[in-house]
């Protein structure tokens, strides 16, 4: 057997890398931000020690208001629920971060490595809002969905967390087993606008 270890992202079979540069200026642009470290964090946001521990390990304050997010040099954090967050860190650093969290956090908390469980799809382009309007019932207007906001919602018939990075740029956090369905849905929904893979 070969000694090399092959990683396959949830959309490996779609061979997105081969599609880069194959399509022109689509109204929707898709990029899979694969192999990032994903950690699910649960804890008590009322506990100052817990908050301080997070700040110490991740170098960024835990976002506490509903549907907010935070970004630091070492980690991006998305609020998922009053006691639940998603921490996204650089590929391969998830084990170290998990260890440090276990070391530094006091009291009642939980950390789970879910790096294999999901992938991040970055969607952008001039028609990205149109595609999202076909996919989620959430109000995408900047007044209700400002930059930095993250929502948990239905994406077509799957679930997803959607974070707005820019006016026309979003991150979709999708589960591995649903990623093929979402890939098919994005292709269908962006047909009229053109889809570019980057």
């Amino acid at each position, binding site marked *: *057997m070969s000694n090399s270890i092959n990683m396959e992202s949830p959309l490996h079979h779609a061979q997105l890398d081969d599609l880069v540069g194959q399509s022109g200026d689509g109204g929707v642009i898709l990029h899979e931000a694969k192999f990032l470290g994903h950690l*699910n964090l649960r804890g008590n946001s009322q506990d100052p020690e817990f908050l301080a521990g997070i700040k110490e390990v991740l170098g960024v304050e835990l976002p506490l208001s509903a549907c907010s997010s935070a970004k630091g040099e070492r980690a991006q954090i998305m609020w998922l629920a009053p006691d639940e967050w998603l921490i996204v860190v650089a590929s391969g650093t998830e084990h170290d971060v998990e260890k440090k969290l276990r070391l530094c956090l006091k009291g009642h908390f*939980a*950390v789970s490595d879910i790096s294999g*469980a999901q992938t991040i799809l970055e969607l952008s382009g001039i028609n990205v809002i149109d595609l999202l*309007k076909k996919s989620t019932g959430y109000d995408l207007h900047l007044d209700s969905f400002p930059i930095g906001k993250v929502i948990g919602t239905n994406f077509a*018939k799957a679930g997803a967390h959607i974070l707005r990075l820019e006016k026309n740029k979003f991150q979709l956090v999708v589960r*591995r087993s649903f990623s*093929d369905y979402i890939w098919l849905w994005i292709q269908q929904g962006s047909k009229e606008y053109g889809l570019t893979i980057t």
Partner: protein
Amino acid sequence: MTQVNRVAAAANQHINRNRPLTFIFNGKTYQGYEGDTIASALLANGVDVIGRSFKYSRPRGIITCDSQEPNAIFQVGSTQATTIPNPRATQTELYQGLTASSTNGWPNVDFDLMAGLGKIGGAMMPPGFYYKTFMYPQSLWMSYEKLIRKGAGLGCSPQQPDPDEYDKMHHHCDVMIVGAGPAGLAAALAAAETGARVIISDEQNEFGGHLLCSTQAIDGQLPSLWVKDIVDKLTTMGNVLLLPRSTVFGYYDHNLVGINERRTDHLGEHVTTSSRQRVHKVRAKQVILATGAHERPLVYGNNDVPGCMLANAVSTYINRYGVVPGNELVLMTTNDNAYKTAIDWHQAGRKVVAIVDTRTTSNGELVQQAQALGIKVLFGQGVINVKGSKRVKGVEVAAINAENHSVSSAISHYSCDTVASSGGWSPVIHLSSHTGSRPVWNDDIAGFVPGETVQQQHICGGLSGVYALSNVISDGFKTGSTAAQDAGKGDGSYASILPLINDPQEDPAMALFHIPHSKPTSRAPKQFVDYQNDVTAAGIELANREGFESIEHVKRYTALGFGTDQGKLGNINGMAITAKSLNKTIPETGTTIFRPMYTPTTFGALAGADVKHLFDPARFSAMHKWHLDNGAEFEDVGQWKRPWYFAKTGETMQQALERECLATRNSVGILDASTLGKIDIQGKDAREFLNRIYTNPWSKLAVGKCRYGVMCKEDGMVFDDGVTACLGENRFIMTTTTGGAAGVLQWLELWHQTEWPELEVYFSTVTDHWSTMTISGPNSRKVLEKICDVDVSNDNFRYMDWIEATVAGVKARIFRISFTGELSFEINVQANYGMHTWQAVMAAGQEFDITPYGTETMHILRAEKGFIIVGQDTDGSVTPQDLDMDWVVGKKKEFSFIGKRSWTRFDNKRDDRKQMVGLKPKDPKFVLPEGAQIVFEKDQPIPMTMVGHVTSSYYSACMGYSFALAVVKGGISRKGQSVFLPLSDGTTVEAEICSPVFYDPKGDRQNV
């Protein structure tokens, strides 16, 4: 055929004479123009009969120009894939090559076998005919129905798959405006100018509503110029979405508005530039209904002969489409407004025979205008009957007395080919009633208007009974700004200045619906109320006489309003006739209300893009590509696609299963078990939480150990099972069934959040994080040893232990648990490494002929061991005790646990409950059908006393005989006894009750 009724071009027409279009109707080719509907093009070509009526099969023509149309309902489309049943020709835009045919009229519209039935007369087919004649014998109803349907025809469903694509979009806005007539447009502008997010939709291809057929000047210019000005303004605003060709089909609670936008239907069949139709789901803070009003016809004798039309429809065909649908017009009206139609007709250069005005007098401006043109006006009279069959030939006119519903003079005859009638206008209250608002009667306009509502809803223009154009537009401005203010935008004022409009002074209209005849209604010529269902005034009066007094009962007995048009044209007249015959007022009689859809909506639109491969998400494991490449057949387990079995070339399924089973029992097999639910449980009270959720105790499970557990609901019935391992003193990983994963997580959260919030424990799903591959069989250890960095000998790695190790260079958790009864190792790696690890295991196993197996072999192997599958061997009515699994129920747990209390219920303690047992058929080759019923006595009269059923049944290649799992009443104490299974083919087979553990009952093989 030429367009005999097309008149000279005029500035206010909305057709493009430079774009002639050819179309086919009932096999004949005709020509129309871009901008035409099928209806306007047929009228232009002088086509009178466009269908046959539902019950009496009478020739019918086009009556309206809008969604009210009851007759011109066609089958549109040239192929079995693209054909659409029942669109209204009055709302279907013409395109090159359009193919349409009548939906009613078998075998054809001009010669109709059924017509004999209609001609014989109403006495033969009173309302309730179908109920009275065809109800008995009831067993024959189905065949009667087929015959009736064939004769009547309501269009045909496409016989081939729809090639078109559909989709949906979600929207949110401050103000949603339904209808882009003068009121809606004014409202949109006023709302949009506040900065509010505005959506305005209209069912027509162009915005303008009533102004599209109007010649009334606005600011001294054509009304279409005012429309264009407003639409241009709205188009340039970034906060407005304009949706033409978009029908609001439903208005739902919480201001959810459903819109169907027809995007390519007007371009042709199967146009692929975009989705064909798009459903917009709009969640609006405020909704403005500006749906306008529909003109109401009058009810008079033979009022269904082709050539009888609504007055406003006639004006629309003249002004908007340049089509005068006849040569000699008689207009009957109860109001001034309809005089416009006679004036339009006259100005188009054709003859107005007479205006028959039911009022004794009127001196309104339009009346004077008509008289000044030399048009004869007959006051105090009515058209009591129409002559002609396939086209109007003339009318009978007489003086009428509306008070006592009688004819008070001799009959005069007039020759004509067209009868236009107007009984006034009915506000289009359909959408407002969708949300439960009861309409209220407004005497001033003799019509229903929307009543109280709990929605954030506004109404304006014709819908609210405001008809004069200047008032309509100012009402629109005012309502638009008010709605915006209610949505938090603007201060309720508006900047737009009302355009200069001269509304003609009109004398009062007369509230009249049903024109008397010299004979009583029951003997008079048929006076149609609901054309689509052939409901007549006589029929309604008969229903009233037979005791149907509630308007809801009248509706159901006569079928009034039951057509695809929902009685848009006839309902108010039907209520008025009921009111009169019961000697009540219309408000006392009440009204029926309307439900979605406003007009029929295609299933394609409602399905949207959620079809074919997108109908339901398919979930895949990280090794799916390998399974595909290696010939797997797949089975749906929840949304997952799991390998069912891996057939080699030429193998049958049974051969593949036998090979997979033998390979696993004799050497080594491998199963993709990634789909099992996995929940990471952390916190100092995790152990106690497990004690309460599972039936068995968890207090003493040491770190590094695994335990099988069963979960019950409060009723004591098993609902999930799986192995949970202790990862650390305060951390466990729970596995659930594949289908139960999401439900179990919710179950845990529910009990934690609502009952035991004091327990410090968190749950996180990690199902998708892990790829799980189970190697099973006597050689499985040898395979694992080749690629694992840890000693996995029996001394070092015991049954029901788990370890961390490196497998094929990848960090892994290995669980030594077994669902086959063989020596087994369940290897879990992070899913991005799943395929890599699987391939490494396959390579390592090659020398042992490692055999991939699917869910079916897994089922056989576990059944040989008597291991249950929740949902197959249980059905929500099975306790652990019924499964002979009392060993999995804790006896000494300190705190109670879910299900415990229910086992003490009398019913759950009965010893004749259905209990799980094994079954051995007497014929060792015969596989009992799953689901087969079990009886104790072979020879019993039917219905036999059934005492259980087969839950799992297979042929075992390993044991050489067939076997089954079953539930049998009191089965545990009946081992060794025979039972019988009467099968659906009439045969009965015998089987012996035995232990459900068929293979290796001592469990030696998994412990080696």
